[in-house]
């Protein structure tokens, strides 16, 4: 009898690992069941950090791509800051039916300034408070700026220039958001000398262009 009890408590490390694995798989499928990934593209070419892509007789290099992803569910709201320097993947709950690209007015006003929302990540405008929803920076021969750089810090949470992008997504399946950033880059270069760094009309227009360039792949 004693031996019987003992058996239960004497799982070998191997068994323990197995058990942990099973528990974590169960946990992740039930709670954070699936992946959401962002796939920035320039026309049909996937963006790779610091490598040049030919587009419109121009060669474009992306040096930074960061975006906020907010997942509202019935019980909670999850906020992720995805950065091409790390990876552009986060876990989202199975039952989520929408995601928002960017920090909308409600989230901005109730921010607790911690985790993904900590201003230390350089995604909060201190002089014109609110979060940068999407940051895209790079180099293009078409840019008139010093060293041919272009910069888009797109955001804005107050009327009439609220610019976060709400998207409906299917349940229970991994989501891949493919974003063609070429039209947006073309617009900032031809209309705004390569820089938009504050909320307002220009950021609004660029976010709308970005919104039209998103396709949801399952």
């Amino acid at each position, binding site marked *: 009898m004693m031996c019987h009890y003992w058996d239960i408590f004497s799982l070998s490390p191997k068994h323990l690992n197995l058990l942990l694995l099973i528990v974590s798989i169960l946990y992740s499928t039930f709670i954070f069941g699936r992946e959401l990934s962002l796939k920035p593209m320039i026309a049909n070419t996937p963006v790779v950090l610091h490598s040049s892509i030919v587009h419109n007789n121009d060669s474009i290099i992306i040096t930074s791509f960061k975006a906020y992803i907010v997942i509202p569910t019935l019980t909670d709201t999850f906020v992720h800051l995805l950065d091409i320097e790390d990876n552009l993947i986060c876990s989202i709950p199975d039952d989520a039916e929408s995601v928002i690209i960017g920090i909308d007015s409600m989230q*901005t*006003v109730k921010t607790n*300034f911690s985790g993904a929302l*900590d*201003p230390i990540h350089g995604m909060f405008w*201190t002089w*014109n*408070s609110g979060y940068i929803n999407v940051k895209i920076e790079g180099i293009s021969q078409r840019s008139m700026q010093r060293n041919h750089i272009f910069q888009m810090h797109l955001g804005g949470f*107050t009327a009439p220039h609220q610019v976060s992008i709400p998207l409906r997504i299917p349940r229970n399946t991994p989501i891949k958001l493919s974003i063609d950033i070429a039209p947006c880059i073309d617009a900032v270069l031809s209309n705004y000398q390569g820089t938009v760094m504050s909320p307002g009309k220009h950021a609004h227009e660029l976010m709308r262009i970005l919104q039209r360039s998103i396709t949801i792949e399952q």
Partner: protein
Amino acid sequence: MRHIILISCSMFLLMSFISVNDEYFPKPKYPIADPDSPIVSLGRELFHDPILSKDSTVSCASCHSQYNAFAHSDHALSHGSADRIGRRNAPSLINLAWSESFMWDGASFSLEAQVLTPLTAHHEMDNSLDTILHRLRNQTKYSNLVQKAFGESPIQTKHVLKAIADYESTLISRNSRYDSMRMHLVEFTEQEKKGYVLFKQYCNRCHAEPLFTNGQFANNALPVDTTLNDLGRYAITQDSAQIRHFKIPTLRNLLYSFPYMHDGRFKRLREVLNHYAEGINMHDETRSIKHLIPLSSHDITDLMSFLHALTDRTFIFNPAFSTKQYPQRNQ
């Protein structure tokens, strides 16, 4: 016996009268913190500590000094790190818990968010959050204070913002002659009464009692300073109707908070009143005051005496606001 009942009855009546009339103050928008709480202690220390600026020379209190009602007295445009001159005059910090947007143009949406602006602005404290957190984490004083205040360490951005915002929420001024009058503890002099009537007629729609601001933005038609060309609220909203609209400032403790206006153009209160009486810029299309305000020189004197009644010495000299007179209690 009859007397005692009579006296206690009238006392009771008087007390209830007072407490009812105390309600002339609206509910705050930001919860007011307990001045004795460890979070406020931390905030008070941070507010007065130059460690927050890049070259460790400037603290919040350098530009917002208690003896100037937390404004900056000697400069029209405030000075920051390495003596860089800013674009605007430092406003007084009074009853901020009732405010919903901060800065002359309302660029900040909360008391906590506002703290980030001076910390990282080039012409103010010119620092980065990384450096600030790093410095604070290396000081045992702050490790202890943060542990006490939040029960966790190391210090993070959110702690700095919350502590300073909580401290600022305690900067409450409601103990002026005007407040005593509202609570029926004193009666205004004839001159103050006349000034009060004029005030209600011409000023109250913007500088609304009892906070002496309605929290909105307006253009009080100052002649345009072309060297600064400050477009105010328009820079934030890009709404052309709001060109040169600025946050309507409180009028409490004006005697201490000179110079006046977003660019500190007026040193004396009388100059401000002369502006409303004869200086309104009639060419400014976006102005919120259509005509000169008809104030005789007698009226101006009466208005001045009313504005003086908004002075609250217990605010200016409250030891609880200062680190000097309120040494770190819990250490």
